[in-house]
C-alpha cells in the first residue's frame, strides 16, 4: 500500500521521498514568487525599518539621539495608524500564494463588505493587527532570510558552473592563464574546478532542503498569522462531512431513478402484457387461473418495488417539498399523526436540509411506532430565524435512551453532519420530544 501523500510542505519535508517528489519545485515556486512581495513590502516599510535600524545603531553605541528617537517614534506611530489598512492587500495576496506551499484552506475572519464598517474592522479586530505583524516580518526578517538563501543558491550555482567559468574566462588576451577565486581557493584550469562541480552537485539536495525549510517556515508563519489556525481545519472537516452526506443523497437519488426508469417501467409493462393476455382467455380455463395468479404477483411486486423505491428516496419529498412529504409520512404511519406546519415555513429548502429533516421525522416516527407504545404523535415544522426546527412529540412511555440503539445516535450523526443538532427529552413515563434544529438560510 502506498504511504499517504503529504498534504503540505512541512509534512513533505519530513518524508523520505521529499527530494523525488514535486515538493522541492513547489517550494522553489513559493520562494521565487515571494521575492517581489518581499521587495515591495521592504521598500514600503523602509522609512520605518531604517529609523529602527538607526535607533538600534545609536543604542548599541550607548547614545540616545533625540531627533532620531522622535522620528522613529513618529514613523512607528504612523505605521500603527495606517499599517492595518496597508497590510490588507498583502495579506490577501499571501493567502492566495500560500496554496502553492500548503493547499489546505486558510480562512480569514468574517469581514464586513465595505465602507466604514470595513475600516472599523481594520482597527477593531485582532486579525487585522496580526496581518500588520505579518507585513512587518515581510519587510524585516524575510529580506534577511531570503538573502541568506539567495547567497547559498548563488554559491552552489557558481560551484556547478565553475569548470565552465574557468574555461570561458580561462585565457586573457595575452594568453596567460587567468585565475578564478572560489572562496579561499584559486582555480586556473577546468580540471582543477571539477571537485567544485562535484561539491556543487552534492550540495543541490542541501539547497533543496534549505529552500523547503524557508518556504515551510514562511508558509507556517503565513498560516499562523493570516489564517485562523485550527478553526479552518475544523471547518474543512465539517464541510467534508457535509459533502459526504450530499454524495450519499445524490447516490440514493441515482439508485431511485435507475429503479424507476428501469425496473418499475419494465414491471408495469409486464403487468400490462399479462393483462392483455388475460383478455383473450375464457374465465374458467386453467390458463386463466394461472395468469390471474401471475397478475396478482405482479401487482404485489409493484407495491413491493414502490415501497422499496420510496424508502430509498421519497419521491414526494423531491417533487413537493418538506411539508407535503411530512403529511405523506404521517399518512403512511400506523399511528395517528398530526402534522403542524408553522408560519414562515417554505415549501422548498436545500436538498440536504430537506433530506435530513425528513429522515429525522421518519426515524423519530419509526421509533415512536416501535418503542414508545404511543397512540398519537405530532410532527411540528417551524422556521425561526435561520433555523428549521422539526419536532416529533408522542404520548408514549418515554425513557428513550440514545445509548439503547434506537437509531437516535445515527440520527444525531446525520443531523450533526449538516451542522444541526438533535435534542431529546424523554423522561421515564413519557412523553418523548425529539427536536432537530437545522441551519438554513430563509
Amino acid at each position: 500500500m502506498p504511504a499517504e501523500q503529504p498534504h503540505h510542505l512541512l509534512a513533505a519535508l519530513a518524508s523520505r521521498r521529499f527530494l523525488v517528489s514535486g515538493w522541492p519545485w513547489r517550494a522553489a515556486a513559493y520562494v521565487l514568487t515571494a521575492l517581489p512581495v518581499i521587495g515591495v513590502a521592504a521598500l514600503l516599510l523602509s522609512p520605518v525599518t531604517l529609523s529602527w535600524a538607526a535607533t538600534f545603531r545609536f543604542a548599541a553605541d550607548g547614545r540616545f539621539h533625540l531627533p532620531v528617537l522622535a522620528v522613529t517614534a513618529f514613523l512607528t506611530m504612523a505605521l500603527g495608524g495606517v499599517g492595518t489598512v496597508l497590510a490588507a492587500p498583502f495579506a490577501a495576496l499571501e493567502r492566495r500564494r500560500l496554496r502553492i506551499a500548503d493547499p489546505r484552506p486558510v480562512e480569514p475572519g468574517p469581514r464586513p463588505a465595505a465602507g466604514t464598517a470595513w475600516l472599523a474592522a481594520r482597527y477593531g479586530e485582532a486579525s487585522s493587527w496580526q496581518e500588520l505583524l505579518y507585513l512587518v516580518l515581510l519587510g524585516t526578517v524575510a529580506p534577511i532570510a531570503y538573502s541568506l538563501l539567495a547567497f547559498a543558491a548563488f554559491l552552489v550555482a557558481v560551484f556547478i558552473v565553475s569548470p565552465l567559468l574557468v574555461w570561458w574566462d580561462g585565457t586573457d588576451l595575452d594568453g596567460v592563464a587567468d585565475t578564478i577565486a572560489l572562496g579561499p581557493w584559486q582555480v586556473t584550469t577546468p580540471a582543477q574546478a571539477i571537485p567544485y562541480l562535484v561539491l556543487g552537485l552534492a550540495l543541490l539536495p542541501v539547497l533543496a532542503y534549505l529552500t523547503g525549510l524557508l518556504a515551510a517556515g514562511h508558509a507556517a508563519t503565513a498560516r499562523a498569522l493570516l489564517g485562523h489556525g485550527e478553526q479552518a481545519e475544523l471547518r474543512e472537516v465539517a464541510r467534508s462531512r457535509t459533502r459526504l452526506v450530499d454524495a450519499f443523497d445524490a447516490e440514493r437519488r441515482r439508485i431511485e431513478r435507475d429503479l424507476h426508469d428501469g425496473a418499475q417501467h419494465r414491471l408495469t409493462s409486464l403487468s400490462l402484457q399479462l393483462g392483455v393476455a388475460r383478455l383473450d382467455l375464457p374465465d374458467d380455463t386453467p390458463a386463466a387461473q394461472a395468469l390471474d395468479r401471475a397478475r396478482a404477483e405482479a401487482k404485489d411486486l409493484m407495491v413491493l418495488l414502490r415501497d422499496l423505491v420510496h424508502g430509498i428516496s421519497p419521491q414526494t419529498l423531491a417533487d413537493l417539498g418538506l411539508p407535503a412529504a411530512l403529511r405523506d409520512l404521517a399518512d403512511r404511519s400506523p399511528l395517528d399523526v398530526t402534522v403542524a406546519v408553522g408560519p414562515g415555513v417554505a415549501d422548498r429548502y436545500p436538498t440536504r436540509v430537506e433530506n435530513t429533516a425528513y429522515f429525522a421525522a421518519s426515524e423519530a416516527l419509526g421509533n415512536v411506532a416501535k418503542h414508545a407504545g404511543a397512540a398519537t404523535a405530532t410532527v411540528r415544522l417551524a422556521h425561526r430565524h435561520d433555523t428549521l426546527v422539526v419536532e416529533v412529540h408522542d404520548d408514549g412511555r418515554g425513557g428513550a435512551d440514545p445509548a439503547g440503539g434506537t437509531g437516535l445516535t445515527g440520527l444525531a450523526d446525520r443531523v450533526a453532519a449538516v451542522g444541526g443538532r438533535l435534542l431529546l427529552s424523554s423522561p421515564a413515563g413519557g412523553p418523548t420530544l425529539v427536536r432537530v434544529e437545522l441551519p438554513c438560510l430563509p
Partner: protein
Amino acid sequence: MPAVTRVVLAEDGVLLREGLAGVLQRFDFTVVAAVGDGAALLDAVAAEDPDLVITDIRMPPSFTDEGLRAALALRAAAPDRAVVVLSQYVQAEYAAQLLDSGNGRRIGYLLKDRVVDIAEFVGALRTVVGGGTVIDPDVVRRLLQHRRDPVAELSPREREVLALVAEGHSNAAIARRLTVTEAAVGKHVGNILTKLGLPPTDDTNRRVLAVLAYLRARS
C-alpha cells in the same frame, strides 16, 4: 361518448407507451399521438384536440411532475378536457390539484398498477370520457385510513361504500360489488352524507367531489 375515442398518450417509457397504445386500439380508442414529454404533449393536444388525454406524471426533462403540470395547463385552457393522469405512486396532493383544475369533472388519477386489470382500466377511462371522475382506490384508502372525525363515526360497511363512491361507482355498481340491494346502498350513501354533514344528491360525480373536497380539507 363518440363511437371512436381519439386519444393523445404521453408516457416516457417506450415499452409501456407502445403497450398502452396497443391495448387502447383494441377497445375503440384511436391513439392519434403518442409522445414522451410534457411539451410534446401540449403540442400534440393543440394539434389534435383529442377526446381524451392520458399522461404519465414523471417525464423528462425534470423527471418530477411534468405530466401533472401539463395536465393542469390543459385543464386551465379547456376546463372540460378529459384527462387521466397515471402515477407510479400515491400522492393525495396530486389528486387534489387535479380535482381543483378545470370544472372538476372528466378527470382521472390512477396508479400505474391498474393496467394489470385491463377491463377495469379501460372502464375507468370510459368513465372519465363520459363525464365522470375516477380517483385511484389507493388514494381514497390512504385518505380514509387516518380520519377519525367524523369519518371514524362511519361503520366499516359505510366506509367501504364511501371508498367505492369516491372511486366513482354508481349505486348499482356498488350494490353488485358488495352483493347487496341497490336500495341498501342508497341508504348507506344517505347515512354517509348525513354523518359527513353533506346534503344528499343523486349526482354521482358531485358526491365524489364533495367527499374528496371534504377529505382534502383535513389539514
